[in-house]
């Protein structure tokens, strides 16, 4: 038995001219609009569209994101994200610091995938200055960034579950993420802002205890994932909230520059670890999960499968970890790369993370630009939400997996 619900297009008295279509939606917050509409007496009766302000302080916006949503009844007509509440000028800060000093600031951009954020900058500087990194350091970088991917997806799974209404998933996701944070605390002394991957290697070598913690975690991970699948994936309430919701086609996704799990959910196995293999990734055997519907549920499934693949990479890297140095022995305190520019891109937990860096031969970069995945992925939100109900907005926004530090930089 299946039944179809249709969002019908009602003939509306509300014409578009009552809104100043030339101005952005942001200007028309309800209070101000009432003033505008009061000037014409007839429009007061025909008022149907409702502007709703979601955020900037709202638990389901995952940070300080403001969404101005135009509603007709419960149905979203337009959704306009308002960004910039967490803008901290990281590109400018990077241009006024020496090359090694940039790394700790990138922790604060994508604070759930700090290892990848550090890595992109480190590789950009290494390419500019032609620094050769020891192989052990590359292995360690792969290990920590894949663990970070698992932690990020676990955190996302919890937050997404909490958005939908499954608070248990939130607790379970954080419980397992805690184990990964313990590992990172062991090797770099910090739980969120790691600063572990440095120019020329990593900050500290791993300890036997780290090795033990990782193996213990990877042992229990499959059982935990099965728990999540039983709890969430098979749950019909969850399926009804996510299946088919916020679906986008592959063409739309590509034209908006969407990357990462959102693109894989649309049916494109685009992963920079395979497409443009960097570091020691070609040595490992792993798959790229792909689903074809492009909806919230498929994004969920891609991320759940990515955790399994990341775990496969971690165990292979840990078993094949070569002996040697974990960082370049002699590195100048102030690196002076030759004049030139470089663009480095990597597969972060949220998608393609790119660093453009331009050197003018001095100790500081002339220009730094970060291409962050959350920003591009968020740009398709207005398209995804049109025609869905306001309750679905939370599910759709949650499935994008935005980190506002990453969006605003």
């Amino acid at each position, binding site marked *: *038995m*299946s*039944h*179809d*619900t*249709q*969002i*019908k*297009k009602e003939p*509306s008295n509300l014409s*578009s001219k009552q809104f100043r*279509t030339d101005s952005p939606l942001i200007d028309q917050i309800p209070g101000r609009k009432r003033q505008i509409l009061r000037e014409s007496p007839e429009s007061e009766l025909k008022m149907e569209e409702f502007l709703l302000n979601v955020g900037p302080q709202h638990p389901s916006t995952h940070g300080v994101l403001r969404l101005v949503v135009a509603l*007709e009844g419960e*149905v979203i*007509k*337009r959704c306009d994200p308002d960004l910039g509440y967490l803008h901290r000028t990281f590109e400018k800060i990077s241009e006024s*610091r020496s090359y*090694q*000093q*940039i*790394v*700790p*600031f990138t922790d*604060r951009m994508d604070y759930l995938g700090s290892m990848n954020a550090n890595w992109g900058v480190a590789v950009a500087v290494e390419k500019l200055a032609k620094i050769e990194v020891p192989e052990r350091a590359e292995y360690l970088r792969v290990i920590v960034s894949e663990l970070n991917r698992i932690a990020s997806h676990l955190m996302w799974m919890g937050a997404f579950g909490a958005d939908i209404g499954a608070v*248990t998933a939130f607790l379970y996701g954080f*419980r397992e993420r*805690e184990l990964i944070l*313990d590992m990172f*605390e*062991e090797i*770099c*002394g*910090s739980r969120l*802002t790691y*600063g572990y991957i440095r120019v020329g290697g990593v*900050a*500290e070598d791993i*300890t*036997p*205890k780290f090795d033990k*913690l990782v193996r213990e975690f990877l042992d229990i991970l499959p059982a935990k994932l099965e*728990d999540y699948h*039983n*709890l969430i994936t*098979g*749950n*019909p*309430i969850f*399926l*009804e909230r996510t*299946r*088919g919701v916020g679906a986008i086609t592959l063409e739309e996704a590509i034209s908006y520059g969407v990357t990462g799990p959102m693109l894989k959910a649309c049916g494109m196995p685009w992963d920079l670890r395979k497409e443009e293999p960097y570091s020691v990734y070609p040595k490992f055997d792993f798959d790229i999960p792909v689903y074809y519907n492009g909806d919230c549920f498929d994004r969920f499934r891609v991320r759940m499968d990515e955790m399994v693949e990341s775990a496969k990479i971690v165990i292979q890297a840990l078993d094949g970890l070569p002996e040697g140095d974990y960082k370049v022995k002699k590195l100048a*305190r102030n690196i002076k790369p030759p004049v030139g520019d470089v663009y480095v891109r990597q597969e972060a937990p949220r998608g393609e993370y790119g660093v453009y860096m331009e050197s003018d031969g001095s100790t500081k970069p002339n220009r730094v630009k970060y291409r962050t995945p959350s920003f591009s992925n968020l740009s398709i939100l207005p398209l995804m939400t*049109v*025609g*869905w109900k306001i309750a679905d907005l939370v599910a759709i926004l949650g499935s994008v997996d935005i980190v506002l530090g990453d969006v605003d930089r």
Partner: protein
Amino acid sequence: MAVSVKNITVPRGKNWVDNTYIIPVIKGLIITLRHMFKKPIVLYYPENKKVLPPNYRGLHMLTRDEQGREKCVACEMCSTACPADCIRIVANDSGDVWKDNFENREKHPIVFEIDELRCIFCGMCVEACPEDAIDMTDMHNLADYTRQDFIYDKERLLGVYDEYIKRHPDHAKRRDGEFKAMKNSSYFSVVSVENAKKPGGH
């Protein structure tokens, strides 16, 4: 602007039992209720505190040598390495005045200030220090009333060291060979709990 029409197929179960969500709810409860019989993973903070690893990047300290003098030689390596510009050092020649106390040093800090609100706790000052004079502790719950109170001067940073060394008497220097051995010892175990009693009534 009109709303575009979308056809939504709402997934439905095969029979009425599926549509009542009784079985999924029971399935979920089985998973969650199983956790009642497992050991709780939470700590009763602040009664019980997690033991942090020795390389934890918390509040700074200025270490002392065997005679209780600060090790700092005011080389300003840390303030140069600092990405956040939070360290201020005013050096003084260890001339006649300091000769008795600091025989082998050319310079000596008369002002050493760290603005802990500016600090981003990256640990680069610790790595830059050639004398192991600056180090980081496991103190992370800083609280004070004014911004001025967060500017730690030399005396306060030395005081942090005194306090830290009382709690961790075997805290060796970070880059010593024994550091790693200590790190893997049971004393700095991540999972061990200082005060294992479980307070009632929580």
